């Protein structure tokens, strides 16, 4: 197969241009999907027969929880690419993921706790799913801590890449914890591959929110990644063009 696209993607100037162009698309998609999803979720979807209106939390909980894991996978895989092919761009992408992922993990935890109070009668329970999500948060924090502890960007990239790759093992554990242990937490009903078992009027908004959050993540990622790419740039010429500053003319 030909690797041209790969190398083009790997070249900072090209990536910077690409990212600049793609950001608005993702941003708009995110905005529309999320608004529609919220309207559908809070307004149109009928109350759940067991949980009443409490279930509506799912429309922020599930998407953020889903992001919490997807972001880590994205981070780990781009870190791996960066480590193997010494691509500064993918290092930049990995570095951009951490804070986003951490914050959405926090949201998943928070909304989950808020949901747990009415459903399980307690905010917190040392339940595998809950605990493993908490650990995911710690993984993100460790990643951030390691990065901030190393001054030199290049070293920080490589070191944190190793950590991210090693840590990815925990993601499946989070995802399957509900199945492996008899958990309070309910098993995947949407993320299941056979046909989901929720009425469409509830399901459609959820899917919209999932898609919307994902789009939002990519929009944020592209913005951050552009900055990170610039930070890693030693040859000023294209950066000058990108920032339309004439190098030397100062």
């Amino acid at each position, binding site marked *: 197969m030909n690797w041209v696209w790969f190398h083009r993607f790997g070249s900072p100037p090209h990536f910077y241009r690409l990212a600049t162009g793609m950001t608005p698309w993702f941003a708009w998609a995110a905005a529309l999907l999320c608004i529609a999803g919220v309207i559908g979720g809070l307004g149109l979807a009928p109350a759940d027969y067991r949980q009443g209106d409490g279930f509506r939390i799912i429309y922020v909980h599930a998407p953020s929880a889903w992001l919490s894991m997807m972001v880590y996978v994205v981070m780990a895989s781009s870190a791996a690419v960066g480590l193997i092919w010494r691509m500064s761009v993918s290092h930049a992408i990995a570095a951009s993921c951490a804070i986003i992922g951490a914050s959405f993990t926090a949201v998943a935890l928070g909304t989950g706790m808020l949901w747990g109070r009415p459903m399980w009668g307690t905010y917190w329970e040392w339940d595998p799913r809950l605990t493993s999500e908490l650990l995911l948060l710690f993984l993100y924090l460790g990643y951030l801590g390691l990065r901030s502890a190393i*001054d*030199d960007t*290049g070293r920080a990239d490589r070191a944190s890449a190793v950590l991210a790759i090693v840590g990815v093992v925990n993601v499946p554990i989070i995802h399957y914890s509900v199945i492996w242990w008899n958990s309070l937490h309910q098993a995947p009903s949407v993320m299941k591959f056979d046909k989901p078992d929720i009425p469409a009027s509830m399901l459609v908004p959820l899917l919209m929110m999932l898609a919307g959050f994902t789009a939002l993540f990519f929009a944020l990622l592209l913005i951050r990644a552009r900055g990170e790419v610039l930070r890693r740039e*030693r040859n000023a010429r294209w950066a000058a063009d990108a920032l339309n500053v004439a190098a030397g003319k100062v």
Partner: protein
Amino acid sequence: MNELTADNLHLWRGEQHVLQGVEFSVRPGQCLQVMGANGAGKTTLLRALCGLAPLEEGRVSWCGRDISVDPESYHLQLSWLGHDHGLKGDLTAAENLRYAVSVRRRVRPDEIAAALVTVGVPDLAGQRVRQMSAGQRRRVALARMTLMGGALWIMDEPGSNLDLLGQELVSALLRTFLDRGGIAVVATHQALDLPSAQLRPLTLQ
């Protein structure tokens, strides 16, 4: 034939462009003497030559092959002495040498004893390195260089903490090594007592 070549080495430390297109090539029997003021980049260059510090640009090649292709076989040819001597304070000189060298090759006790004699600390074989003086430690580290073998010596200020006899010792060790067809890269502030035919100066700023 053995040869160490560097073309167009570039390396940044933080915001600082330390190595700006360094170029040279050294052949057997020659010693590249790296000179320069404090902070000129000698240590950085030497570490880059060892493959310890990654280059932003340029390549170091041994016998014409880039050292990053097959580092292990290159390192088998290399003996390194840095600013810090790499000895364990809680082990005796003899133990230090035995373990360090055994990682690369089989070594006999009498070789170790002989090496300690050449560097002028014959009676310290059984003494803990922690209990040695600065210069004595440096000498033990030099003994390790002589034992490690290999066709390429890279030394960073081998003479630091050494007395005048010690300085001559360094030159003597280098001379015998070069005469046996070795290649040496030495960063130093003092002059080396070598025949000018063998000496290739390189000054960084």
